[in-house]
């Protein structure tokens, strides 16, 4: 089976100016990321703020151009941003953001918002549009009387449902969700997560689910990639990665999740802050905070290597194959 979407050595560098007249310095937001998502599969992407996970999500959709590397959708390279080929492809891949109020037009009713992609991609003849909108609203659990409402009249959870209904309107094959439930209360969050899972199972949509909330990712993703400073440091199935994390950073992340009723003592509390991407530490970017860092970690960047059972990790302290995933892929 070929992957629905594949990223190959993606690099995105932003120029950031320090101060008003300062010199600009390059920030490697995404630094050589390769990944693949199968049809109907959910890939979770976790990491702290500044790890480049949102940039990666935008690059997968072609919204942010890659300085080097390539994104392939259904086997063929992604057309350039803004071209008609890219626009046609956008019907097959949609994006859901964290803040639904910002994603919705305040002056349009919910029904008008959901009908926009139908108009843009000319998917449904006018006379069938109302039926399709009603169908979409029912699919995300909105009541039919809410069609004429404006975004400010809905609650946060309902707004996010409206955004998802709009994203589903063009029957996408891929949904990139960037922190879709982070702004919602726990009880509503569970409703939306269940809904996303149901929609996905029913329609076979593949999903890239970006979140800093490990608990949510655990319950929605098939596979999880952990990012640190623009690189994937570990990737494994969500069944094992949270139970048996290999990379010291993943271990610390898992350990930092407060579990109700579990006291703080005995957990790994990482010291220090995530470093500034503009000032990346030498060698392994994680070494200044790593409890098991050795001399080699300060000088040489660990490559992402296979560590058995379909897992990969980028760490000198984790045993694995000697050849990196990249070289193996190139040889193949």
């Amino acid at each position: 089976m070929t992957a629905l979407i594949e990223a190959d050595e993606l690099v995105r560098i932003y120029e950031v100016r320090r101060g008003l007249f300062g010199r600009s310095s390059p920030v490697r937001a995404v630094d050589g990321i390769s990944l693949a998502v199968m049809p109907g599969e959910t890939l979770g992407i976790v990491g702290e703020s500044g790890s480049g996970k949102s940039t990666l999500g935008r690059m997968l959709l072609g919204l942010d151009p890659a300085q080097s590397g390539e994104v392939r959708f259904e086997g063929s390279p992604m057309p350039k941003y803004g071209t008609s080929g890219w626009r046609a492809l956008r019907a097959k891949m949609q994006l859901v953001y964290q803040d639904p109020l910002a994603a919705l037009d305040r002056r349009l009713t919910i029904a008008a918002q959901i009908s926009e992609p139908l108009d843009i991609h000319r998917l449904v003849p006018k006379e069938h549009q109302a039926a399709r909108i009603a169908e979409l609203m029912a699919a995300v659990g909105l009541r039919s009387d809410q069609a004429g409402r404006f975004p400010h009249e809905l609650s946060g959870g309902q707004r996010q449902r409206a955004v998802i209904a709009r994203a589903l309107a063009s029957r996408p094959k891929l949904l990139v969700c960037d922190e879709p439930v982070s702004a919602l209360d726990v009880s509503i969050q569970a409703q939306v997560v269940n809904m996303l899972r149901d929609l996905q199972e029913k329609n076979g949509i593949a999903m890239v689910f970006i979140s800093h909330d490990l608990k949510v990712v655990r319950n929605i993703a098939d596979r999880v990639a952990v990012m640190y400073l623009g690189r994937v440091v570990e990737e494994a199935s969500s069944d094992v990665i949270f139970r048996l994390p290999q990379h010291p950073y993943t271990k610390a992340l898992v350990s930092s999740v407060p579990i109700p009723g579990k006291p703080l003592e005995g957990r790994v509390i990482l010291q220090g802050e995530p470093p500034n991407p503009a000032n990346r530490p030498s060698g392994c970017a994680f070494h200044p905070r790593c409890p098991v860092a050795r001399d080699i970690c300060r000088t040489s960047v660990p490559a992402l290597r296979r560590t058995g059972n379909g897992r990969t990790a980028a760490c000198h302290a984790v045993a694995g194959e000697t050849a990196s995933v990249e070289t193996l892929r190139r040889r193949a």
Partner: protein
Amino acid sequence: MSAAKPDLVALRDLKVAFDGVQVLHGIDLNVAKGEALGLVGESGCGKSVTWLAALGLLPGKAAVTGSVRVDGRELCGARRAALEEVRGGRIAMIFQDPSSSLNPVLRIGRQIVEALYIHRGLRGDAARVEALRLMDMVGIPDAARRFDLYPHEFSGGQCQRLMIAMALAGQPDLLIADEPTTALDATIQAQILDLLNTLRAETGMALVFISHDLGAVSQVCERVCVMYAGRIVEEGSVAQLFSEPRHPYTRGLFDAIPRIDGPRDRLIPIPGTVPNPKHLPAGCSFSPRCPRAVDACGSDYPHLEPQGDGRRLACTRPVPVVTRGDAERRIPEGLMS
């Protein structure tokens, strides 16, 4: 409960209304000296408003009634001078977004020194030495060199540490932390929770920890109040509430939290949404969402009554007590003592 320790703060029938819409429906709550109390609930349940009202920090259009006593002295309706004595001095408060609480155009050292002058009258070198000690205490590395930096030169986690340092400047008896870790990354959140625990052990101050995150609350608190739609619906020790929630809402909150361990299951949401304070349902506000509700729940509001086991509960049809064997299985490890 907290019978052994004297009460530091006592709230009685505290009510708040904005433009005639009542958002807080009579809060009775005690905070004992040195204890750590958690306030949990979803957005709009009134957990922040409770303490903003208690400290007189709400805007003028808010109508606050009831009683707020700090060491027996009435604060509600007190004069500004009396309030100023308590705010920052006896009770300090920190908020979710540290960068908007700090003055962006003042050097960080000066802001801490200002707090030291206002609350303790320290000036000059004495103030500087004390400010450096506080920065050191909250874990700002290399404090002397960073004394003259501006807030934007610190990260979010460090800004929250600096806010805590400023809050500690008045040597408060009570620190109110309103969602102090919500805006922070997971690894930084763990650091701040750890810091709050350490500081409480060192200074003996009491802590009110306001959060929607039951996990975070259980790491720093001894006692928890669960709030829903402007009322306290259940109160008890952390061990009690976490091992055996009795209010259906508390139970629902626990069930809705996705688990990081265990199998990948469907989540168990609470149906419906939090009611609009303008149109609160009759009777128990939770009854339209409650799986255990009966007809009577829609007409009479259950009062918060003390239970035999030391907790307080506002529910006519609470979740039944599970048998001993079941309870043991469900109590998370570490709480069985």
